[in-house]
């Protein structure tokens, strides 16, 4: 696992901070907001799924719940459109956490592979509820109070809020990674039965991790709703969101800290760029699928791990093969 140096981290952060000051084209800043949003979501997803090995394909449940919290509260409370709506973002996160408790309690009753499928099933329950329940406005969606700061400047506040979310998610993920709780999650990923035998309260640990990761996902949903000004069930409870978030983490490096950030940055930015360049959505699907396939087959552990192994390997290839060869580790367990 790589530990990028503090200078590298601050340099990356500095670039992200000055980006909207240099690039003022709304088309680009809008890509920036969405990219940061996905970086935050993926980091948060990875904090549970990456550390525990329980791949969730239901993250849109929390993203969508956050978006609907924002839409319903702002319209029912007749709030004026503007910066005040940003205060609803943490509320959206909290609602997503509350929803994550029963969802997690059901989904985490089963082991990994079935868990994946159940999160998909639960996701569809939520999507259908959003389309059919009376209080959500159904398939027609909801319009939230209009935000009327200038068009050229429109994306900038969103950009910095999204950046704040990325920083929050990263710090939280790093803190979890270093805590006893994080070690328990990693122990579950390596060998759940053994972890259980050694006294880790696996169910409680998994549920806590699951609920924690819902917070940032819910906040991102709230932000997305504000940014778009309107939401439809199919766009916030979107099955491709589930998959995209997981893919970004795998692309960057499943279970690492830097990986999800990098995966989100590369994938979302290129995805937005490709969609704009190729008006043909089908060609884009094919390109996306091929890229995805190549990464999984040739860098199954993600970019971060592949690059760091290559980097370390140049100097100490023999040592590395003897000590951290994944095949040897796998054979021991």
């Amino acid at each position: 696992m790589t530990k990028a140096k503090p200078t590298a981290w601050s340099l990356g952060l500095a670039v992200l901070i000055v980006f909207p000051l240099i690039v003022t084209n709304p088309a680009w800043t809008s890509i920036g907001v969405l990219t940061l949003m996905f970086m935050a979501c993926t980091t948060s997803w990875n904090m549970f799924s990456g550390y525990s090995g329980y791949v969730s394909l239901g993250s849109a449940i929390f993203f969508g719940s956050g978006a609907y919290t924002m839409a319903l509260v702002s319209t029912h409370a007749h709030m004026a459109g503007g910066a005040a709506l940003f205060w609803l973002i943490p509320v959206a996160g909290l609602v997503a956490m509350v929803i994550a408790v029963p969802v997690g309690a059901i989904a985490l009753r089963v082991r990994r592979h079935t868990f994946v499928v159940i999160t998909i099933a639960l996701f569809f329950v939520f999507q259908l509820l959003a389309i059919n329940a009376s209080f959500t406005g159904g398939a027609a969606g909801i319009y939230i109070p209009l935000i009327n700061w200038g068009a050229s400047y429109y994306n900038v506040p969103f950009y910095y809020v999204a950046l704040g979310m990325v920083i929050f998610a990263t710090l939280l993920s790093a803190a979890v990674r270093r805590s006893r709780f994080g070690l328990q999650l990693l122990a579950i990923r390596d060998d759940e039965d053994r972890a259980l035998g050694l006294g880790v309260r696996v169910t409680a640990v998994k549920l806590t991790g699951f609920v924690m990761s819902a917070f940032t996902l819910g906040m991102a949903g709230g932000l997305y709703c504000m940014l778009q000004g309107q939401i439809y069930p199919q766009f916030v409870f979107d099955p491709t969101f589930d998959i995209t978030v997981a893919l970004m983490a795998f692309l960057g490096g499943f279970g690492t800290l830097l990986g999800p950030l990098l995966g989100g940055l590369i994938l979302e930015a290129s995805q937005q760029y490709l969609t704009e360049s190729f008006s043909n959505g089908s060609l884009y699907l094919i390109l996306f699928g091929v890229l995805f396939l190549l990464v999984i087959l040739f860098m199954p552990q993600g970019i971060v791990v592949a690059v760091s192994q290559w980097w370390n390997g140049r100097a100490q290839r023999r040592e590395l093969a003897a000590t951290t060869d994944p095949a040897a580790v796998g054979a021991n367990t």
Partner: protein
Amino acid sequence: MLDGVLTGSVYALMATGLTLIFGVMNIINIAQGILVILGAYLSYTLSVHFGIDLFVGLIITIPTLFVVGVVVERLFMARLKGPERTSMSILVTYAISLIIEGSLNMIYSINVVQLKAWYVDKSFPIFGVYLPYIYLFGFILAVVLLTSLYIMLYRTRFGASIRASLADQVAAALVGINVARVSTICFGLGIAVTAAGGMVYGATNAFNASTSYDLISRLLTIIVLGGMGSLGGALLAAILMVTLGDVVAVVWSPIWSSPTFFFVLVIVLSLRPQGLFGKQSARVA
């Protein structure tokens, strides 16, 4: 009600392919949904451009998809190894499904189509209702294919080696079964059934490439409800799902017919995490 049982058998066929692949190879094939649609489009091309009857066309489409399955297995699935194999398989098959979806959109456009034949338009009376003949023919087709699949699995030597691999891969390899070859053929078989499933699906529903999302979510819930890797479970869960959906649509509202099945799934899994007929012990701490 009755068409529930009839279409349920077709879902059972598609889900059997999925559960077979999972049971033998520990691979969750997300591409199953789009492959059903691919099967439907192949039948569509054969019937529209070459005037071949839908059922006769299966002689071409079933082997074609079998080959597709074998190629995909050799190229991608056989490379997946290690503890994260199942998770990786989800991503790989999802990527494959995106590529197929994009290609189908380009070739056939995104307008929905439906397969046409005389038995799709003509109906026959049964218990006071009229059903198109395709429901009956599709049911017979599904029963024939499922029966032959079962005979192959339970009455032949090759079937015994598949079941041995389902039960325990390492032990199967130790008694001299070529698990790699069994896996390839299994994957091919699991994909081949989508040709038949896709034909009947395409004749009873209007479809385009994005219909596959609905299909795959249904198929996945069927195999989880039945117990992953259990062939009988997939059969029962498929019929349960479609019948239940129909009953709810009649007595309550069509809107709630698909959510109901997901709710049932959630309830069953809270009581029996391994599904109705699952053999895997999922320990609850």
